[in-house]
C-alpha cells in the first residue's frame, strides 16, 4: 500500500488539470485575507486537497499567513549587519511590517519592499521614513563588473537592460536555441558534459550528467525548472539576471527541454523578487507570442516565503501544492520529480551559461577557470565592501584578490574580521584563510563552502552575538520541520544561546551543532551549523556572555 499525498497530487494533476493549489490559495489570501475554517474547507474542495493539507500549506508559507499588505523589511544577513532589526522595530511603529529573509539588495543594505511591491534601499541609513515616502525612486541596477577573460554570466546585464525581447534578440538571444534545435539531444548533452559546467546554486553538481540522467528516464512527460529562489542572504545575481536578462534563462531552459525531451518549463521565482516576477512574466509572453519557444510551454511559479524551497525537492513539493518539505532521495528528481515525472532543476545562473556554452563550444568554456571548476562565477559583494555589486570572475582567482583588490576591502576602511561566504549554509572565512583560489575543490579542502558566492563583509566592531543569534533564529524559523536534528536542534540551540542560565553553553551548542550536522536529512540542516560552529570557534567569547 503506497498512496501518499504525492500520489493524491499526481492523481488530481492528471484528472483535474494543472491548477496549482498554492497559487489558488495565494490568490485567495491576497483577495480575502487569511481564510477562516469555513473558507479553508471551501479552498480544500477547490484545490482537491484534504483540509489538513491546506492548513499545512497555509501555516508553512510565510506569505500565506502573514498580512499580504504589510511592508516587508529585509532581515537578511547583510541588512541585519546594517541595522535592519532596529529598522524593523522602528518601521512597525509607523506601519504594518514583517521581516523577510533577503530582498536581494545586499549591495545597498538595509532594504525593504513596500506594500506596492516597490523596493526601497537605504544604503547604510536604518531610518524607516523612506519606506513610506512615495517620492523615493526604485533602486537602479547594482554595479556590475567583470574581471574574467570572457564575460559570460553578466554578458548582457553588465551592459544594461535586456528584458525587452527586441533588445535581447538584437544581442543574439534565441539564436543559439535555433541552432540547437537542429542538433541531436545527445550532442547537446555531450557538449554540456564536455564543458564541465557545474550547477551554480551551491551544490555544484555537473549539469551535463544531470541532463543525461533525465534524458535517459522514460516518461510521457518531463519538466525543466529554473530555480530562481535565490534565498542566500548576500547574493542577488539571480534577481538581476531574471530582471534584466530573462531571455537567456528562457533560452537555457528551452535548450534543456530539447536535450531531455521536456515540453514544459517552470520558472520558480521567490516572492521577495516582485520585479523579477513581473519582468519574467512579460518575457515569457513576448517569447511565446513571437513563436520562439516552439511547443515548449513556460510558466512562472511564485515562491510563497520559504527558504528551504530553494532545495530542489522542497521546490517540487511547493509547485505541487504541498508543504515545502524536502523529499527523501532517491528517487532523484531527474527520475521522479514534479508530479512524479523526470525533472531537471537548474539554477538561474547555471541556465544563463548554457546558451554561451553551446554558442562558443565546450572547449571555449572549459578553457576558462580551473580544471575542476571551469567557467566563470558571478560573485556578489554586499554594502560592507568599498565597491559593492556584482563581480564576474574566472574560477581560480584568489579570494584575497577578490576581497582586497576587486572589492576594495571594507567600506569605511576598517579591518575586516571575516567575510561570510555563500550565506548561512556557507562559511566564515577569516583573513588568514583568504589565500585560496575561488573554486569548489580547493575551498572544500580548506573547509570553506562557496555556495552561491555571495560575500558579506564583517568589519571590525560588528556585534557578532547579534549575527550569531540571527542565524540560529533563521534556522529555527526556516527549518522545514521534517527531520528532528534540524527541527528540534535549532530550537534548542536558540534557547541555550539566549538563556543566561545554561551553565556551560559552549559545549552544549557544539554538541547540538554536531548532531545537526551529522544527523540532518538535507543540506540545510547539515550545512547551517558549519558557519555557526566556525563563529563559535573564532568569536566564542563575544557570542556567549
Amino acid at each position, binding site marked *: 500500500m503506497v498512496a*501518499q499525498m504525492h500520489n493524491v497530487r499526481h492523481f488530481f494533476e492528471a484528472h483535474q488539470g494543472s491548477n496549482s493549489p498554492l497559487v489558488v490559495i495565494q490568490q485567495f489570501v491576497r483577495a480575502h485575507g487569511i481564510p477562516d475554517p469555513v473558507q479553508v474547507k471551501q479552498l480544500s474542495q477547490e484545490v482537491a486537497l484534504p483540509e*489538513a493539507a491546506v492548513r499545512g500549506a497555509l501555516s508553512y508559507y510565510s506569505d500565506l499567513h502573514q498580512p499580504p499588505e504589510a511592508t516587508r523589511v529585509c532581515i537578511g544577513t547583510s541588512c541585519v549587519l546594517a541595522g535592519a532589526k532596529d529598522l524593523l522595530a522602528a518601521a512597525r511603529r509607523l506601519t504594518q511590517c514583517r521581516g523577510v529573509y533577503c530582498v536581494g539588495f545586499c549591495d545597498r543594505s538595509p532594504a525593504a519592499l513596500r506594500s506596492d511591491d516597490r523596493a526601497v534601499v537605504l544604503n547604510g541609513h536604518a531610518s524607516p521614513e523612506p519606506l513610506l515616502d512615495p517620492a523615493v525612486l526604485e533602486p537602479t541596477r547594482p554595479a556590475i563588473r567583470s574581471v574574467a577573460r570572457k564575460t559570460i554570466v553578466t554578458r548582457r546585464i553588465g551592459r544594461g537592460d535586456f528584458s525587452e525581447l527586441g533588445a535581447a534578440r538584437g544581442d543574439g538571444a534565441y539564436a543559439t536555441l535555433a541552432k540547437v534545435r537542429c542538433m541531436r539531444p545527445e550532442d547537446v548533452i555531450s557538449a554540456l558534459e564536455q564543458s564541465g559546467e557545474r550547477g551554480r546554486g551551491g551544490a555544484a553538481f555537473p549539469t551535463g550528467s544531470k541532463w543525461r540522467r533525465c534524458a535517459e528516464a522514460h516518461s510521457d512527460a518531463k519538466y525543466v525548472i529554473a530555480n530562481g529562489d535565490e534565498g542566500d542572504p548576500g547574493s542577488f545575481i539571480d534577481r538581476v539576471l531574471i530582471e534584466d536578462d530573462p531571455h537567456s534563462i528562457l533560452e537555457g531552459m528551452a535548450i534543456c527541454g530539447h536535450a531531455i525531451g521536456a515540453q514544459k518549463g517552470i520558472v520558480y521565482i521567490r516572492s521577495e523578487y516582485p520585479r523579477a516576477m513581473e519582468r519574467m512574466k512579460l518575457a515569457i509572453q513576448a517569447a511565446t507570442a513571437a513563436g520562439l519557444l516552439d511547443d515548449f510551454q513556460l510558466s512562472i511559479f511564485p515562491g510563497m516565503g520559504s527558504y528551504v524551497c530553494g532545495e530542489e525537492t522542497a521546490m517540487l513539493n511547493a509547485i505541487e501544492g504541498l508543504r515545502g518539505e524536502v523529499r527523501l532521495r532517491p528517487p532523484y528528481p531527474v527520475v521522479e520529480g514534479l508530479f512524479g515525472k523526470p525533472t531537471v532543476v537548474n539554477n538561474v545562473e547555471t541556465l544563463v551559461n548554457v546558451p554561451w556554452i553551446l554558442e562558443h563550444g565546450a572547449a571555449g568554456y572549459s578553457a576558462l577557470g580551473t580544471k575542476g571548476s571551469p567557467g566563470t562565477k558571478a560573485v556578489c559583494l554586499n554594502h560592507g565592501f568599498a565597491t559593492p555589486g556584482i563581480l564576474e570572475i574566472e574560477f581560480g582567482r584568489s579570494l584575497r584578490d577578490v576581497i582586497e583588490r576587486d572589492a576594495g576591502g571594507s567600506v569605511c576602511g576598517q579591518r575586516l574580521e571575516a567575510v561570510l561566504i555563500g550565506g548561512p549554509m556557507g562559511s566564515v572565512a577569516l583573513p588568514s584563510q583568504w589565500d585560496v583560489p575561488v573554486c569548489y575543490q580547493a575551498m572544500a579542502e580548506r573547509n570553506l563552502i562557496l555556495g552561491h558566492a555571495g560575500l558579506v563583509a564583517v568589519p571590525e566592531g560588528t556585534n557578532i552575538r547579534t549575527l550569531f543569534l540571527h542565524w540560529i533564529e533563521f534556522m529555527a524559523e526556516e527549518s522545514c520541520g521534517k*527531520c528532528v536534528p534540524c*527541527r528540534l536542534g535549532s530550537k534548542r540551540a536558540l534557547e541555550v544561546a539566549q538563556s543566561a542560565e545554561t551553565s556551560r553553553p559552549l559545549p552544549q551548542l557544539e554538541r547540538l551543532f554536531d548532531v545537526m550536522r551529522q544527523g540532518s536529512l538535507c543540506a540545510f540542516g547539515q550545512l547551517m551549523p558549519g558557519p555557526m560552529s566556525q563563529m563559535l570557534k573564532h568569536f566564542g567569547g563575544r557570542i556567549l556572555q
Partner: protein
Amino acid sequence: MTEQIATIDNKTVSVRRGETILEAARRAGLDIPTLCYHRELSPEGGCRICLVETDRGQIHAACHTPLQPGMEISTSSPRIGSLRRDILSLYLSAHPADAFRPSSTGTEIEQLMHRLGVSSPAFGHTAESLPGDESHPYLRFFPSLCINCRRCLHACEEIQGQFVYGLEGRGSSTHLIFGPSSRFADSPCVSCGACVDHCPTGAITDTDRIDAPPPDAVVQSTCGYCGVGCRLDIEVSHNRVTRIRGAPHAQVNHGHLCVKGRYAHAFHHSPDRLTRPLLRTGDAWQEIAWPEAISWLSRRLLELRDRFGPHALGAFTSSRSTNEAAYLLQRLFRTCIGTNNVDCCARVCHSSTALALQTVTGTGAATASYADILLARNIVLAGSNPTEAHPVVGARIKQAVLSGSSLIVIDPRRIELAEYAGVHLRPKPGTNVPLFNAIAKVLIEKDLIDESYVQSRTEGFAELREFLHTLSLAQAAEIAGVGQKEILRAASLLAKNGPALFVSGLGLSELTQGTASVMAFCNLGMLTGSIGKPGAGMLPLRGQNNVQGNADMGGMPNQVTGYQALTDQDVRGRLEQLWGIAPPREAGLTISEMLDAAANGKIKALWMQGEDVAQSDPNQTHVLEALNALELLVVQEMFFSETARFAHLVLPAAGVFEQEGTFTNGERRIQLIRHAVPPPGGARADWEVIRDVANAMGACWKHETPSEVMDEIARVAPKLFGGVSYARLEPDGLQWPCPTPDHPGTATVHSDGFLRGKGRLVALDFVPSPEHSQNGYPFVLITGRALEHYNVGTMTRRTPNRDLLPADFLEIHSTDAAKYDIKDGQTVQVQSRWGSTRAVARVSDRVSPGTLFLTFHFPETHANLLTSPYVDPQSKCPEYKVTAVAIEPLRGEAA
C-alpha cells in the same frame, strides 16, 4: 554475473536492487533501532535514529538509503551510538519531564530509551503538559506525547487513504493536526484505528487501549460484520473482549480493520443479551430450561408436520451464523421434516448476483479475490459504496486508484470513491440494464472488445451483437439519465487498460431487474476478456459475514449444499448414503414466498436463525401480518429483536466470539472463528441447538464439534469443499473450489475456461420497475448503509458507534430541499404506496435531484415500511433500491 555484496557490521550481505540498508540489515538478522519507521509504511526519514556509518565516515539514515555494492556499514559504532542518544535526547527536550520513562515493556519510544540508555534530556527541556483530546467515542490524542514522527499520517494515507492528518507550522513549531481542527471529533476520521496501531508513543490511542488490563489471552478469529471477512486478534481479559486488532499478516485485511470490526464489540457484553430460552404463552413470556425448550420445540415441529404436512414448515438459515449452523438447519428441514422450504437472507440481497453469475459462468460467486484489487489496472465499481459498507475493501480500492489503476464508478449517488473515478456515471436508480447495454454496444461497435477471448471463451455473441445493434444509444442514455458522451468516455476508459475488475453491490442486485443487471454487467466482463484472469473478473461484495457460506451450505430452496441440484441422481445417492434420506425433488419456497404463504395460512411454522425480518424485509406491514399468522415461530437470537416479539420460542444464541465454526467471505474464503469468551448465561451456539433438536426429533446426529460438521460438508459437496477440513484453515482459510485435501484452493475461478463450458453473453431487454414513474410519488428512494452501523443495527447500536451516528438520515439534494423548504436536520414525512415513516433530512448533493437515500439501521425509522413487495422475477430478490415516494417536511420538528 557475480553477486554484488556489501558488509554490515562485518557480515557479508548480498545487495538487492532498491533494498535499503535497514531492510538488508534486518534480512541479515541485525537490528538497527528505529522510531519513525514502520515496515508497513513508506519511510519518513525524519527521526534519524536509524543512522549508520560507512567505513568512509559517511552517515546515512538506514531506512531510506539504498545499500550499494561495496559499502561497509557499521550500525553501532561509538560515534553512531552517541549520535543516536543525542537525537533521542533532543526528542525528550521537547516534552514534559514525565512524558516518557525508559522501560523494556513500555511504548516504542520508552523501549528505545531503555535500549539506548537515555533517561533524561541532555539539553534540558522547556515543554509544558498539554490537555488531551477526548472528543471522540473511541480515539484519543495526547499532544504532550506526540513526537511528530508522522507514522499516524502515513498509516492514514497509505492504509486507509483518508488523509486526516497534516502538519501545521514550520520549523520547531511544526505539529500534528486533524483535518480542520486538532480534535478527532471534527476531523474526517473514519475511526479505522490504523493510526493507533502505528503510534510509537501512545499519543494517539483509543479507549480500548487506555482502559484495557493486560490480556489473559489473544484469540485469532474472523470478523462478524460484513462479507470482507477480516481476520482479528481478539484480546480477552477476565472473560471479556477488551480490544481487537487486525491480524497482522492476514491475507484478507493485511492487519487493517474498520470502525465496526475494531471497535464495535461492546454488544457482546450488553446487559440485554438473551441468556435463557423464552417461551411465550399468549402475551406472557416465561424463561425455561434448555432441555424443556428442546423437547417442546421438537414435539411442536413434529406435531405441525404431521398435522399440516412438511411443506407447511420452513426455515430461514442465518447469514450471520456459522456454516455449520446453516448446514445443519437445512439438513434438519430437508431430512427430519422433509421439505425444501429453506432459504437465507442472500435471497434479499445478492440472490440476483448469485443466480446471474451461476447462469453465465457456472458458479454463483465471485470469480476474483480481494487480492486482485491491488493487481487491477482497471476497476469498475457499480452499485456499491465500499468505503462505507465494506470499508477495508473500499480503502484498498482507493489505494489501487492512487497507485495508478483507473476507476469507473457507476452509482446514482456521488459516493466517496466517485471523487477518485476517471468517469462517474450516475444512472437513475434501477436503470443499470440499459446503461450496461449501451456501454456494451459502444465496446462492440467501436471494436473495443477482446475479440479472441470472446471467440474462444464465450457463446451468444452474435445474438448479443444483433440485439445491441437495434438498441438506440440515445434512447438508452435517456432512460438511464446519463449523457451519451459520458457513456462513450466510460467505454473507452474501460477498454483502454485491458482486463478489468468488476466490483458490484446491492445496487445491481436488489432490483426487479436485479438478475438482468448483473448479467448485463457480466457481459461487460466477458466482452473485455476479464473473467478468469488475475487482477480482473467479477467481484460482488457480499453484505454479511457469512452470506456466501449460507448459500454455499444449501440455505436455498432449489439447491442443496454446494449448489447441487435436487434432482441429480448422483447427488441424491450421496445424500441418501450420508443423510439416510434424500430431500424432496421439488424446490421449496423462497423467503418472500414463505412470508406470503404464512400470511395466507399455507405456512404454519417458521424457524428463523438470527434474522430480524420484521425490520429487514421489505414491505414491513405485510411481513408483520405474516409473522402474526404463524402457529409457530422459533427465533434464534442474541437479543430480543423486533421479530422476537412475534415468536413463540426464543432461543438465546452465542455470538461470533463465543463459539467455534467457520464463515465464508465474499471471495469464497472459508475461515475459522474461535471461541474467545464464554456466551452469557445459557446462550448456546446455534449448531449445537439444531443438533439437539434433530436428535430429539429422532435423528441420530453424532457431531461433537463443528469440525466434524465440516468433515460431513466436505463429503456432501466434494466438488467445492472436498478438501476442506479445520486442520487446513489456519491461518488464512481456503478459497473454494477446493476439491481435494492437497488442493490449494482457488483465487481466480474460470482461469482454465468457464466452469459451465463457455461464458454466456446474454441479450437483455429492459423492463422498468413498477415503482418507476408513479403519479403522486415524485421521488425515487434508495435504501442503504452508513459506515458506522451494520444493517438493522442490532450489534452496532449497542456500542459507542451510536455516538458516531445516533439516528438514520434521509439524503436529499439541495434543490429539492429548497423546493420543499426542508432544512438540514429537519424531520421529513416519507410516504410510499406501501407505508410511511419519518426521517431526519441531510441536505446533500451526494444524491441527484429527484432521488432520496435513506439508511435503515434504526428500528425507530422502519425504513422498510416504505419498500414495495416487488421482487426480481427470476431471483425473487426484493427491490430495496427503488421505491416511489412523496415527502413532506414536518414543521416545528427541526432537530
